[in-house]
């Protein structure tokens, strides 16, 4: 190991796994561009929160997970969903409000989930998923399943009371939870400098006697390695960790954002640090694939997204008479 200076992901995972990681990063990027375009064309209503620019954080955090492992996600959760194995066709169908969607058109972008793959769902409430992930950790521990729960949340959620209560409980009960804060610098328009007393959110781990790590969230290998260590610790029964992935959303908070709180220069600087280009370059450098193979991965992801949009367009609209279906179990039939 000591004489192998290659990045962690290259050392740890085989070529097929790494190629799939690149594919998922492209899928996230093209899925969100496709969703944005569909929104502009009036095919999707409501709003959405895009994570373009944060793809490494989502995919690298999930690369070591199985379908038995759980994740809780956020309102900026499309990337987590794809990372955990969701099909983009059914995701688009959900955005289009169709029965074929993951939530049969009842949830939309902010509640997308895929429980069969261990994705317990995006969440419209900032910090809503934090205690829920701890509950998933409690189940894993009590039923001895060996599973871990990955809890994604944003920098905004680190100032919610739920953050304090959830991290404290996970720590006192030594639950298999990995808290991953995707710090993209702004909770809507308010910067972490203005909202948060500590410089790095991972410093808050000290208050819960758990390890805390601040990582370059656009560096696939750095994220994968840090999360891998935390997962190993969780599975060994040693308790939770807090990881802070420093990253950036290229787009605004949501569709109502006029971008008054950050400069074009800042945005451009982060676009220059594109996590997909960076990972792709790394894979080529270490001969996992060559330029034309990388291009093929991108092209196939683009085709998958295009096919997904067509699938969604041809989906079935829910019947209005089914409005109250799924409120209670007995109304499912």
């Amino acid at each position: 190991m000591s004489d192998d200076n290659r990045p962690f992901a290259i050392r740890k995972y085989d070529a097929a796994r790494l190629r799939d990681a690149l594919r998922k990063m492209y899928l996230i990027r093209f899925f969100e561009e496709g969703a944005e375009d569909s929104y502009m064309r009036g095919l999707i209503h409501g709003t959405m929160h895009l994570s373009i620019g944060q793809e490494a954080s989502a995919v690298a955090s999930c690369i070591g997970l199985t379908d038995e492992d759980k994740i809780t996600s956020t309102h900026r959760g499309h990337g987590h969903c794809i990372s955990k194995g969701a099909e983009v066709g059914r995701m688009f169908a959900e955005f289009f409000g169709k029965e074929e969607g993951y939530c049969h058109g009842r949830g939309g972008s902010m509640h997308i989930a895929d429980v069969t793959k261990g994705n317990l769902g995006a969440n419209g409430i900032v910090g809503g998923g934090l205690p829920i992930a701890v509950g998933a950790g409690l189940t894993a521990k009590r039923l001895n399943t060996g599973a871990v729960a990955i809890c994604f949340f944003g920098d905004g959620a680190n100032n919610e009371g739920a953050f304090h209560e959830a991290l404290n409980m996970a720590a006192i009960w030594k639950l298999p939870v990995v808290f991953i804060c995707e710090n993209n610098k702004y909770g809507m328009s308010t910067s972490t400098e203005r909202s948060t007393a500590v410089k790095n959110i991972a410093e808050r781990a000290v208050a819960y006697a758990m390890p805390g790590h601040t990582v370059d969230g656009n560096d696939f290998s750095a994220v994968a390695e840090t999360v891998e260590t935390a997962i190993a610790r969780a599975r060994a029964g040693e308790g939770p960790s807090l990881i802070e992935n420093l990253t950036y959303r290229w787009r605004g908070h949501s569709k109502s954002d006029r971008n008054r709180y950050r400069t074009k220069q800042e945005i451009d600087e982060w676009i220059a640090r594109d996590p997909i280009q960076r990972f792709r370059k790394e894979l080529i450098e270490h001969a996992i694939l060559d330029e034309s193979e990388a291009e093929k991965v991108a092209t196939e992801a683009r085709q998958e997204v295009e096919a997904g949009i067509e699938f969604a367009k041809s989906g079935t609209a829910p019947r209005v008479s089914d409005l109250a279906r799924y409120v209670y179990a007995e109304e499912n039939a």
Partner: protein
Amino acid sequence: MNAPTRQPDADIRELSYSEAIREAMGLALERDERVVLMGEDIGVYGGAFQVTGDLVERFGADRVMDTPISELGGAGVAVGAALTGLRPIYEFQFSDFAALAMEQIVNQAAKMRYMLGGEASVPVVFRMPAGSGTGAAAQHSQSFEAWFGHVPGLKVVQPSTPEDAKGLLLAALEDPDPVVMFEHKLLYKMKGHVPEGWYTTPIGKSAIRRHGKDVTIVASAIMVHRALAAAEKLAGEGIEVEIIDLRSVRPIDGDAIIGSVKKTGRLLCVYEGVRTLGIGAEISAMIAESEAFDFLDAPVLRLGGAEAPIPYNPDLEKAAVPQIPDIESAARRLARREV
């Protein structure tokens, strides 16, 4: 505070309301590995009202879990555990503290199944000691049934007897959806017959506690017992009161209430929560929209909590919620068409 009238029974077994709830939880812990109890000081302390009692000694601290004083987080952990395969029963020390956890109960637990298009279940039970009469003042005495009853996705039950306390808790535990159970603190020591073993009281079904032809009283929790006492006095005046014990606030047993009002032509709603926008408003409107409307011989009356927080002073505290003489007088005025 007498238990509803019951035929004498040779092998009648009496338990208190809190013992009945404890027995239900003990049976559940024995029967199903997935059941866990969570809450503040429910372990060696036995719970603020001694409802969990000795369960920690029987089942261990891993299954009867003391939580930190973190209602939002604790409720959320219960939600997440229910979502992933456990059957948690989360005790709020006082129902008032559920205000700290509304996010997890209302935004998460209640809506999860719907938001996920039926792909997930949240079989969690929230137990809530509620109500006034203990001198605990404004932040430890409230009755929030109507708040939770307003949320599609939740079921809300409110037992008035030890038998129903056990049966409704076991029904809540078997239910695949989140159930909020309000336990009236003044009932915890009340004794009554409780069948042995596992049985359930159906959620959404009321019970007729006294039959009568002149006035229908719909009451819940402690108010059932006050209404029974009032009815006893009115019987001496020749006024026969029918008493419906609501038992479930959501879903509400409309058919039973409508059927009774069609018979008596007069309706009095008695509940401890604040009168305005409360359970009585819902029941009144339900009658106004039903075929029972044509059978009404008098306006519908509501007796509910005062438009004020629960006060500390004992006389003020009593005056803040319906008492036996209030019920007696309102039912008498209805029967005599003095309204």
